[in-house]
């Protein structure tokens, strides 16, 4: 005889706990889609460069004095966000607040330095296809950093209100995932626009 199957679950967590919850999955899917967006942006650069006549590149040796430290700084801010989440897991709210503050300041400084870098470029948005690609790609990335800054500010506020704990921290975990993603993208953008010219692409 056939048995009737019945799910009799044991103790189950109620609502999102730690990184377990649909919110984590949701942000992951959006990160995948955003990653595709940047892949297409970089594809546009490489495709246009590869099919262009010689001399497409505007600067065969772009200055690294601002861009390199700026990219490194953004990676350090990722460590800060990692540290913020660790603080919650260990019940140290002060550490979380401080780390979120550090990440925010580093992210904001990145945006300011990015503007400085743009001003220092010898070309403008409409000068050529390479210039357009450069400004739109770095601009798109900077816009993602700005969105992340708004999210970090909201997290700081919520942490100050004592909303989170080791158990209930999905918002922090989700923003951290997004922030790490944006910083990985900054490395890809940097490699494309500041390193490949030295390797001879598009000259």
């Amino acid at each position: 005889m056939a048995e009737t199957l019945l799910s009799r679950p044991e103790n189950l967590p109620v609502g999102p706990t730690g990184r377990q919850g649909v919110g984590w999955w949701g942000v992951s899917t959006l990160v995948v889609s955003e990653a595709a967006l940047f892949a297409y942006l970089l594809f546009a650069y490489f495709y246009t460069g590869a099919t262009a006549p010689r001399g497409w590149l505007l600067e065969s040796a772009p200055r690294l004095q601002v861009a390199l430290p700026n990219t490194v700084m953004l990676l350090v801010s990722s460590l800060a966000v990692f540290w913020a989440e660790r603080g919650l897991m260990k019940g140290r709210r002060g550490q979380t607040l401080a780390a979120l503050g550090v990440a925010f300041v580093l992210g904001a400084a990145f945006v300011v330095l990015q503007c400085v870098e743009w001003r220092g470029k010898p070309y403008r948005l409409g000068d050529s296809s390479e210039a357009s690609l450069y400004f739109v790609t770095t601009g798109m990335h900077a816009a993602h950093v700005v969105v992340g800054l708004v999210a970090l500010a909201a997290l700081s506020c919520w942490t100050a209100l004592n909303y989170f704990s080791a158990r209930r921290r999905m918002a922090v975990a989700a923003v951290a995932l997004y922030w790490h993603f944006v910083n990985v993208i900054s490395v890809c953008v940097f490699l494309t626009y500041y390193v490949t010219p030295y390797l001879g692409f598009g000259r």
Partner: protein
Amino acid sequence: MMQPELRTPAVDVDSIAHEARLYSLWETAPGLKGFLSSVDHKTIGIRYIVTAFVFLALGGVEALVIRLQLAGPNLTLLTPSEYNQFFSTHGMTMIFLYAAPVLSGFSNYLWPLLLGSRDMAFPRLNALSYWIYLAAGLFLYAGFLTGNGPNDGWFNYVPYASRDFNPGLNQDFYALGMVFLGVSTTVGSANFVVTAFRTRAPGMSINRIPIMVWGTLTASVANLLVVPAVSLAFFMLWMDRQFGTHFFDPAGGGQPLLWQHLFWIFGHPWVYAIVLPAMGMVSDGLPVFCRRPVVGYSLVALATVATMILGFGVWVHHMFATGLPGLGLSFFSGASIVIVLPSAVAVFAWLATIWLGRPVITTAFLFFSSMILLFVIGGVSGFMTASVPVDWQLTDTYFVVAHLHYVLIGINVFPVVGALYFWFPKMTGRMLDEKLGRWNFWIMFIGFNLAFLPMHLTGLLGMPRRVYTYAANGGWGTLNLITSIGSFLFAAGVLLLLINVMKSLKSGAAAGRNPWDAPTLEWAVSSPPPPYNFAVIPTVASRHPLWEGRLGTEGDRSSLDRGMLLVEGKETIGTSGLDADPDMVLKMSKDSFAPISLAAGMSVLFTGLLLKLWALAIVGAVICTMALIAWFWPLHELREREAPHG
């Protein structure tokens, strides 16, 4: 009071008191408040379907105007520039505002019912995707109604879309509208992916989900990966037009072919995204009328996924005539030919299901089974154009127009109308009229084939597409007249569907829970289902929970009457990705104004961008930011944060 962090969900049978409690938790408020804030997947699904059918009707009327213009040589109903807007808006409407959204509508409505859950994984995101779809549709149509519709075909090649050749607002409406609509598609797809992996009924392991879920899931994964390509392309086009960038402008070192690559990297997977869920409808609906399970479930599911994987590698077959290197063309030609294989698997599985079953001829069966024929005709003409030399002969002729209408009407419209006959009773509690349904089917079927079968010949005789008229001496007049007559007959068939829906809503026969004696979970609940779908969470032991007795299934049986109650708030069960073992209690969000506020803010933002009113754009961005912060504010009732202290 400290909230418990862990809980063992109570298991019992349904009771009147239990249902009353569920109603109070899940029912949407009456009136305008509920209308604007509802996150019920069934409400959203029906809104999607109704809106998509309105766009189908609009796109249909545009098609009829086009067919009047082309009914004979040298007609002057439309000027050339009006004709450009009509055929472009027709394509945009059917492909972006009807074909994909109507499938999202069915999936939104059906998924939680098919999966034994109480809502989608992200109910508010679901509402957002609908409101953005509506807003973007209105945005795009605002362009058309003010004489600024798209005018360069739905795939909108540069340089004709560039500002030098197209100075009006037409392309700006289209570009920004498509970026706007892309947000809806993306968030909707994210919701489907998470819903499929995290909210299935306990026991519904990945090899027990209905094929339609496979179809929409596959399409959604693809959308996440390819929609950014077209959004980016349209954004770049807008930048080129309004800010003097040179992405597509050769004079500034740009690459016009970049547009075609980005568009078709999106466009071809998109073609599969608007047919795979519809093929899933056939794979689930047809077997019900054959009184047996679909033949080769695993093969059909794998064919669905394989089609999409191959579908990522065929986009260049739209670009065979652009002068790309021969080796590249060979690769994409090969991939386009190989993709026939998974399609053939599905076709033979459906044929075998009919062959081995005991078919009951209903209107839904006629629509589902005729789709197989139309799919084969459209597939073979696609297979022909996958060959480079044949494509060079046929590209930009009416042969391609005939092919794409066989594919899109054959594999999207016919299954969708069949699905309406099949699931309308579930959605409304009333049956559609079968007698009217036969007229509906045969008129649509004859009208469609009368319109589009001769069109292959029109194309072979060399008539180019997208041209507003033709000379009398080309020998195309009679064929075009036949096509025009067929298209009006087809439209009359669609009108009969509308009449049937109106009539049956008022006076259709009562449906009951399971009028077709179908096997899957949506038929286990009342028609229409209560706001919470399932009073107790079902436990699933097979692919056909309602057919277990008669299929002679050995071993465990599904439990539909007894299960987790989950009534301590708006709750459903979260399960593991592959095996669907319960692993958490999901707290579901209540009705919310955040989605519609966000969609409104985005509408303001995009209007500001279109008109270059930067202050307005900033106002829109601020509204969006506020709506998002309100949305993500961690709520205690959703267990997103700790209980307040003290």
